[in-house]
């Protein structure tokens, strides 16, 4: 069946005014648009320090030497070019109860990739389920969006989610710190935020984007249900009523709050996006509100 484009042209034009934003300072070569606290070959003055052997004599503040007869070195802020890594959940849970959630996640990833390409950032898309999939690196401007869009369109949901294994693989494989955007429903059996703590402590800045279906938060069913988990195939029989629905929704909201606290604790950000929400509304709503893009 022929698929339409993930994002229409009108929306792409609106995205061009945005930029992916991060708060931490990361090292890197010059050429980015986010200011770093690391000194380097920048334009903005940062600080002075004592001269050490081997420092570049061109950076010595000769005026201060004439007055104080001590050699001080001028340091400048750099705007490093840091690759933005985008982890996209492709586990089977993203297709439950319908594929609408996965489609919404793909559209969101495409929108962020386009924003990054417009600002000449390097975007690396990492699909994952129980392991990290092959990454798609894209950079060089908006005209490179086509391959990313094709890559995202070709993704299929399947497999289980193991955030701990993924985080370990990621840290082992990629040593450069940077902004890490995780797009997932974060619906796993593991009730822990340890993988995200691990990634943050390694030095990454986290932007957790939770994409959920309305049925994930408020199940519409009543009566006797036989529940089948999408990833493991596990089954549970239960009576479900309004009270149970309230307990369920409360548990879901608790988990979302826990994710948000984890992100904030490490200087990151958290955004929740309903799959029923149009991607345009999701970008200019929750993502702008948490300053994931601005």
């Amino acid at each position, binding site marked *: 069946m022929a698929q339409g484009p993930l994002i229409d042209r009108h929306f792409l034009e609106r995205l061009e005014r945005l930029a992916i934003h991060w708060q931490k300072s990361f090292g890197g070569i010059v050429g980015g648009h986010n200011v770093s606290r690391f000194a380097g070959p920048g334009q903005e003055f940062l600080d002075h320090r004592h001269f050490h052997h081997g420092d570049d004599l061109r950076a010595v503040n000769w005026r201060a030497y004439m007055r104080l007869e001590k050699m001080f070195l001028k340091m400048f802020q750099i705007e490093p070019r840091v690759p933005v890594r985008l982890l996209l959940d492709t586990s089977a849970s993203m297709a439950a109860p319908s594929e609408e959630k996965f489609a919404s996640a793909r559209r969101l990833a495409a929108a962020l990739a386009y924003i990054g390409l417009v600002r000449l950032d390097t975007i690396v898309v990492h699909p994952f389920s129980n392991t990290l999939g092959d990454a798609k690196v894209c950079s060089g401007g908006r005209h490179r969006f086509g391959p990313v869009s094709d890559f995202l369109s070709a993704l299929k949901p399947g497999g289980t989610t193991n955030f701990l294994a993924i985080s370990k693989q990621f840290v082992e494989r990629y040593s450069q710190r940077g902004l890490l955007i995780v797009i997932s429903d974060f619906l796993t059996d593991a*009730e822990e935020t340890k993988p995200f703590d691990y990634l943050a402590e390694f030095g990454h800045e986290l932007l957790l984007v939770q994409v959920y279906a309305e049925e994930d938060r408020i*199940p519409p069913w009543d009566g*006797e249900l036989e*529940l089948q*988990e999408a990833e493991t195939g596990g089954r549970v029989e239960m009576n479900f009523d309004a009270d149970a629905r309230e307990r369920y929704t409360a548990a879901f909201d608790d988990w979302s709050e826990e994710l948000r606290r984890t992100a904030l604790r490490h200087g990151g950000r958290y955004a929740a996006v309903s799959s029923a929400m149009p991607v345009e509304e999701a970008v200019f709503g929750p993502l702008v509100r948490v300053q994931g893009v601005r």
Partner: protein
Amino acid sequence: MHLLNLSLAEFAAVFSAASAVVVALYLLDRSRRTVLVATLRFWNEARRPVESAQRRRIRQWPSLLLQLLSIALLLLAISQLRWGSRETGARDHVLLLDTSAWAAARGIADGGTQSLLDQAKGMALAYVRALPPVDRVMVVYADGLATPVTAFESDRRKVEEAIRRGRAGASALNLAQAMEFARRTLSRHARSAGEIVLAGGWRTLTSEASMPVEWPANLRLLTPRGNPENVGIRKLGLRPSPEDPGLWKVLVSVRNYGARPHSAELTLLFGGSPAGGRILELAPGQEAETAVNYRTRAAGMLEARVRTRGDRFSGDDRAVLEMPAQPELKLTVCSDEPELLRPLFGSLPMLMATMRTRAQCVAQPPEGVAVYDRFVPRGGFRGPSLLLEPPADQSPIAVVKSGVTERIDRWEQRHPLSTGLRAQDFRLSQALVFRTGAGDTGVAFTASGAVLVAREVAGQPKLVVAGFHPLRSHLKFELATPLLFANILRWFSPEAFRRTEVFAGSVGAVTAPWQTGETNGLRVINESGDALPFTVRDGQVRFYSAQTGTVRVVQNEREQTYSLALPDVPEAVWMPPEKVKRGVPPSVSGLAQARDLWPWLAALGALGLFLDWLLFAPAGSGRVGSLRQMPLLNRLHRRAS
């Protein structure tokens, strides 16, 4: 309290079936369903153990009971539950309004100011107004045919309008047919059979022997009192005298339908002028036929009037016939020996022969049919012409042989000139033999060839050439000779030989005498020129016409014209059985009216189903689910659950 549409057993059966379906759907709706979810993690926190291992079980009794109650209410609405006794239930009646010809007679009541039909309408309206409003009435006009003018109608305005619209027709009441129609209509189309009401019914076509033995128990008569006196014309006929061409024989048949003897004054008028008359003394039930001779060759209207003291039906007191003109064939005989031909042409009454010499015919060529005796006019023929023994060199048809003395041995039977001619001993002397060309038909043949030829060419007058003179030899003694001349003149001018008879009768079945027995070319056509179906049996043509007008029975030169303008007044007075109900019963108007409950039941049933959906339906998706999120409804739902 009773059900109008269903019996109790039918209701129970339908309700049982519907209940079974509802329970099955309920169990199916509440059965365990499999749902694919992203994770079981939060479900485990909200989990409540399954209460029972039995899967098909009723868990929401209020919901099921509410559904069953709603279904029962809807079924009762469909069954039309009514408050009151069954006798007050809606019934359907057939009202037969007698619109026969006799209904136009003035009645005895009210000093004869009202017609019988008006009185019957009044009684019918009173009956309809006395019926309960839920009863339905079908109005049928009954005369020769039973014609329904409404369906079973509960709208009294339409029923009364149909009754008022009734007009007396021209045919007689066919009571047996009307009764059968009403009985079948009630049995097939009525919700609950009511009464067959006959408004009228005085005289009927049906004899008592053909009436049903068992009259319907639900028959009611609304018949005005009395049987009005009437003397009227039954038949009026015109027949031309075969001997005297200008003489008509007028036949009038008058009947006394009443119970008293009457003296009837019969008057005949032609073109408004008196043409004859009679005084007829008629005993009760007597029919007298009288004949009046009237001489005229002109066309005109012949009117017959009957005047009787105490007559209350004027429809049959007058009859009018259109008298056709008597055709006359003008013939010019061009001969220098007129005495030779005069006896021959003087024998036909419709023929007016003028004898002229050859010189006169040459000087002034004759118009119309002409006979040329042994000569041929030079200027051609101006009308149909008969040439007797023309000169061989002037004959319009080539002569191949002359002076032939032979016998005629063959007649061309397919040609009208030889109709009825079989003679083989026509001995000719000095005859001419012709060669036939285009448009020529040889009629009589000798061994040498055609001696009598007929020519018929489009755009030219008909021509007959005889190669012999029938009156100059011993042929004048042959019996076939006048017949041959008659055939020739009939072929020239068939209208002059058409025998027209005119009759006035009544609509309905008509029996016309037709003595010829020959049916080839026989047609029965009405005023519009449409053919009517007919049968011929025992020398009689029978046909049926339900409309007034003129019907012609035509065959070749014979024509009978029937002016069907007289009303058909049956001879028999119908005496209804004693046990038949009569008049408007007061109990009908006093019946208590039953009250319909079905609108309320239907509304309650619908409300019950809506409440069930609101309180017990599984939370659906989309907008239906959002309605359930309303605080009050949500609280109600949770309480009911």
